[in-house]
């Protein structure tokens, strides 16, 4: 099996999770990367993706696990020769265990630009109420792990795939503190102990 990390930018951030799954399968076929299929009535390619990222959020750190015998180096090369605009493999590793890309990547690091200056202390550890699409209010503060000012923006670590959406979080901050052309980019997909996911292979 191959675990690989890819970036989703340059327009590709607008591709939905399900369409992305199809796109990956097509990329493998175009690239001549042989992928294992499930057994059963309707065989489907054995491709596992990390939890969905919001449509429109750029990412430099999406993960995918795929059943293939292709060695990592040639995988990366072939994939990038045939991937769509905005999708680029930035790392590939061989593994013989079926790592849980969806279940183990439970945190993510984002870089947020465009927000007006504010004190992170006012946010981290304080109730943070977000309204979901059904109009229910929810305190997501247990999923806000870290907010740090850095050059040109802020770096934050939030929960991933477990009830907090970066788009909502950032919009809330913008409503509270102001900002212009606020944008969050996912920079790292992390395990619960905040290691980059590929480190779990070692």
């Amino acid at each position: 099996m191959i675990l690989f990390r890819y970036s989703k930018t340059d327009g590709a951030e607008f591709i939905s999770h399900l369409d992305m799954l199809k796109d990956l399968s097509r990329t493998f076929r175009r690239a001549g990367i042989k992928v294992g299929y499930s057994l059963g009535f309707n065989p489907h390619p054995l491709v596992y993706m990390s939890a969905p990222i919001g449509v429109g959020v750029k990412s430099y750190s999406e993960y995918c696990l795929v059943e293939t015998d292709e060695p990592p180096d040639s995988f990366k090369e072939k994939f990038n020769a045939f991937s769509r605009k905005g999708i680029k493999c930035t790392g590939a590793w061989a593994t013989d265990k079926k790592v849980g890309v969806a279940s183990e990547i439970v945190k993510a690091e984002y870089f947020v630009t465009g927000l007006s200056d504010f004190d992170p202390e006012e946010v981290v550890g304080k109730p943070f109420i977000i309204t979901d699409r059904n109009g229910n209010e929810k305190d997501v503060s247990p999923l806000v792990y870290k907010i740090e000012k850095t050059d040109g923006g802020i770096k934050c670590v939030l929960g991933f795939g477990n009830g907090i959406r970066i788009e909502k979080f950032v919009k809330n901050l913008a409503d509270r503190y102001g900002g212009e052309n606020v944008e969050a980019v996912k920079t790292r997909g992390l395990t619960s102990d905040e290691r980059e996911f590929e480190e779990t292979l070692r």
Partner: protein
Amino acid sequence: MELSEKLYGILKTVEKPARYIGGEYGERDLKPDRLNYCICFPDVYEVAMSNLSIRIVSEVINSVDGAICDRCFAPWPDFGDKLKENGVPLYSLGLKMPLKDFDMIGFTLQYEMSYTGILYMLDLAGIPLKREERGEDFPIIQAGGPCAVNPEPLADFIDIFVVGDGEESMKDLAELKLRCRTKSEFLEKATAIQGVYVPSLIEVKYDDKGLIAGFSGKYPIKKSLCRDLDSGAFPKKMMCPNVESVFERAVVEVMRGCYRGCRFCQAGFIYRPVRPRKPDTLVGQATELIKATGFGEVGLNSLSTGDYPYLRELISKLKSELPSDVKLALPSLRLDSFDGEFVQESKKNSLTFAPEAGTQRLRDVINKDITEEEVERGLKMAFDEGYTGIKLYFMFGLPTETDEDVEGICDIVDRIRKIYSADKARARNLRISVSASTFIPKPFTPFQWERQISEEEVGRKVGILKSRLFGRNTFVSWNDHALSEIEAVLARGDRRLGKVILSAYKKGCRFDGWTEHFKADKWNEAFRECGVDKKFYTREWGEDEILPWDIIDVFIDKSFLKRERKKAYAGEVTGSCKTGCKGCGLQRVFRCDV
């Protein structure tokens, strides 16, 4: 080309924004050239990206030196409204260039209910809707596709129509445009190209009863004909859609035209003559497309793929040439061509068949040359293959239809159930869905003079179906009559409908083919305010009346259509071209290979 910051912001607020960003895998790298053409599909991305004809046109235009072809589709209302609010003009997907900066814009007319979509797109682009209001500064608005055989309802909006096959005519048109300085020079010279109709050069006269009295100008306009489809333009690449689309497969066109001549079917006549491609050509195209796209399925498209003369050879060659996990899809299979070996390879849960009519008598009337035994044999084979669902298409209101024919639909359903349950090993219940649409008389068919039945008549027929079929694991659906009625009016419409279409659009009609957007009340208001009576168009027409589409010649003789109509009333089957030439008219201009 990149998206502006403003647009980027809008995209984050709309549904499925990937429809508006281009950048698909397989997208051509375009640079503006001397002739910038934009092909437009007046419906949403998912529908447009599944269409083959716009890809053929793009291929043709892009092959002309100095010309490029970009594309643009109708934005879903949420995005359309936001574009308007923010003052962002509608733009092409490749170059992200405002539509109004193109030299020429071509709309494909695939179905009548997309006509308001044309006005919607022009409006969003900031282009005046009526051709008279567009001077030299605006692009030339062109249209083509199957509905162009009766171009008249759109004559107020379109500068130039291309009727018939686009393979050669569109190339000639692009080359001519490159040589012309002004719009008027181009339009005048374009009439020399076969298939070209310029509505400003023809006038329609009416008599005091409102019937057409005649035309002035040069007509009939002969449709453009691609004589050698095998070497005709065909795209070697296709794009992989950014969002899930209606069809996501590599499509090859195995043949154009249909041998059958079902008397209600417009496609069966206007796409004549039948022109099959060679199996080797198709295998080459299919393998190249799969390599270029990574699709997992090849679609063998045509009006009746089961009639393709070299189907066995083609399928066995495809199976040996394509990667083993690539499936074949054969849409448009007729029941009688259903053969154990030819079964669809994709999901075997539901099968679609179109007997069209409930009794043998009525099937003879419409020249649907298929017998009950053939239907049953085909179905048994399908059930043996593991199908557990079946979709049946019928039509209400075909000429000579009686209640007995409607009862016949129920009888067919009963018989299918019996065939299915004859084998006790078939564990699951058979799901049957019966879909009945209202017959719409279409130009260039033997039924072009027929009336369309009324809402009350449809209601009664639906009642018969419901009383016999409801509840027994059978789903019955039928068309919204208001929609079928407007489709019928537009299909046989004349120039006087231009103002109705415009008024309906201004009242908010767009995406009329989508039930959730179709606004019957607004359409009816538009007809009333414009003083146009729908019944004038849905009535039975006289065979000696001058028809709005008499200005177009698709090489089918009117006398042949009249003969076919007579035979229909006598319940006589004409049968397929394969059983000998029936003299429809094409034989005078083309040597059909049957």
